[in-house]
């Protein structure tokens, strides 16, 4: 579009730069406010910390101990749940997807359609009964919730993997079979490596979903013992008898950091993953 016109291009670049600065500014506003005295945050959120309002890391120190639940624990649970739920989803659904695509009998097709169906069911439909089931089965802990995530997240993952498995030529697997590989060795030795691009896409999508999910863990996890970061922040804001906006700003910054680090380390994969996910979805 703008290939010919160098001036036009420069102008576009400048405009885009301005827009980008505005676009990213909310994150910086929060970062800036996390270093300010709590009384001057809501009064003047857009003012840089001055000599009077600068408090250094005080908000952070207060934030990590604020409320009735230690922040580090919710970080730990968030990381644990996200990592292991994602791994479980990747492992089990890729196996299932390969199997049901290859066997392709009535049962398998039935499961496939159930999975597609589950993708359109909103969480509110099952929120109560799911939390009730999880409680009955003793799944209301960070290990048990992995099963819940595997079940509720299976639909999308199976769907995406099936789409990919269909495109893998059968000959490769048949050759392996002739060489004497059983299904397990065939799957882990041959199919899984081929599936890497889709594994990455699914991994990205599920990680982002689970890390940021609020309502499912809030309803499923046992409130006596476990909280994830979103639950912790929602709980602290305005609700706990006293609300400390300085501490909340600090906690927001702390909870954004891991995901930003994750983004910058695997940006290429994330972008690819979303593109792949979109084409399939």
């Amino acid at each position, binding site marked *: 579009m703008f290939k010919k016109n160098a001036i036009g291009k420069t102008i576009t670049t400048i405009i885009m730069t301005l827009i980008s600065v505005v676009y990213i500014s909310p994150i910086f506003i929060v970062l800036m406010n996390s270093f300010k005295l709590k*009384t001057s945050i*809501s009064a003047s959120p857009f003012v840089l910390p001055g000599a009077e309002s600068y408090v250094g890391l005080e908000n952070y120190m207060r934030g990590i101990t604020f409320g*009735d639940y230690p922040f580090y624990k919710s970080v730990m649970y968030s990381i644990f749940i996200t990592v292991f739920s994602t791994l479980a989803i990747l492992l089990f659904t890729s196996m299932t997807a390969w199997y049901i695509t290859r066997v392709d*009998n*009535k*049962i398998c*097709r*039935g*499961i496939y359609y159930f999975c597609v169906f589950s993708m359109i069911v909103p969480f509110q439909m099952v929120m109560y009964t799911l*939390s*009730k*089931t999880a*409680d*009955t*089965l*003793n799944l*209301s802990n960070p290990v048990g919730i992995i099963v819940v995530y595997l079940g509720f997240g299976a639909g999308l993952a199976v769907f995406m993997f099936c789409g990919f498995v269909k495109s893998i030529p059968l000959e490769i697997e048949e050759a392996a079979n002739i060489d004497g590989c059983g299904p397990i060795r065939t799957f882990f030795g041959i199919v899984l490596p081929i599936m890497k691009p889709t594994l990455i896409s699914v991994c990205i999508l599920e990680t982002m979903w689970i890390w940021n999910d609020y309502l499912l863990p809030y*309803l499923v996890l*046992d*409130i*006596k013992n476990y909280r994830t970061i979103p639950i912790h922040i929602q*709980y602290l804001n*305005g*609700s*706990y*008898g*006293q*609300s*400390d906006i300085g501490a909340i700003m600090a906690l927001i910054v702390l909870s954004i950091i891991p995901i930003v680090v994750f983004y910058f380390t695997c940006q290429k994969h994330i972008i690819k993953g979303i593109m792949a996910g979109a084409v399939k979805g």
Partner: protein
Amino acid sequence: MIKKILALTLAILMIIPMFAACGKEDTASVYYLNFKPEQDAQWKALAATYTQKTGIPVTVVTAAEGTYEQTLTSEMDKKEAPTLFQVNGPVGLANWKDYCYDFSGSKVLGELTSNDFTLVEGNKVYGIAYVVETYGIIYNKTLLAKYFASNFATIKSIDKLNNFAALKTVAEEIQANKTALGVDGAFTSAGMDSSSDWRFQTHLANMPIYYEYQAKGIGSTDAIEGKYLDNYRAIWDLYINNATCNPTVLASKTGTDAETEFKTEKAVFYQNGTWAYGSVKKDDSGIGLEDSEFGMLPIYIGADGEENQGLCTGSENFWCVNSKASEADIQATLDFLYWVVTSEEGTSSLANDMGFVVPFKSAKAASNPLVTIANEYIAEGKTSVSWNFSSIPSEKWKKGLGTALTQYAAGTGTWDSVGSAFVDGWKTEYAAANQ
């Protein structure tokens, strides 16, 4: 194919209950779903002490402000449901009666000083009030004395400050001369954030409800008339127009904001109760009020004969034991309660750490100046205002009133909608709750 899937599904569904059966431990334990965030840390400490002494695990969970009913609803449905929970009075009891254990014959019931502190239906005792609280308009004695001594003061002593007109005069004169007095306003901000809105949509709303009940000689109603709505408006106007902030910003003001304003002596008046003492008293860094600086006024709304009105005293905290819990858990819970109200650790925690006045025989006197003030009012023969918000039909009513008050304060809503929330909302919610 459908048959096979169904068979498989059924098989798995049948395995589910087997999982369920094997998880539950048999040791007795107590799970207390606490209503009062102010005392969360103290309850947890007390629970830990008990566990250390007896080996019985006691878990304390406090629901976030404004979400108790919601948390209780979802927790009661769980396998490890609270064994000890709270209801706020007859209306709350109506919701949870099927889950309330009959206290009759229990040791903890025998410790009560009077049967007035029970929730009884028929011959069954479903709830025990464990704390008697008092609220009113807390004031800073030093600042108010400064006002009395000033040349712009019309009212010169606390004895004259005994009705709404006088309160209005004082508040408006303080507001007009706030710089001279070194404050930001007469009242602390009447924040309508969920951490603070209950002070107005429940505690302040009790005043018009109380006077209407008094006039009619009733204790609950299916349709409130709103006879004292004008008085409610008068006191609300006074609060919002003579405060540390503009009424339009109240929507986002929090409980902490008001607390900080009072603690840092930027406001003279602060509507709250005995439970607030701990959060505004002088702390380790030297900020806050000395015990001798606390005063408390009745909430005057301009009703007839209010010169003799006392503070608002009552309870909306009734302990209930979950009747659907296992027998061992029920027993453990009753033992825990008995220990709390009789043991040295329990009684001193209730009195000193939590600052509660409790209606139990071995209770210790609370070291809370606000409690002392409350007792003085009773000794003087003033008529205490009862807590009638236990007859409010639902939490939704309070929320609806709160949002109407917020918008009235901000100028985006009219007083009519406050009236509608108060009167029509009551009717709707009463009907919904008593289908």
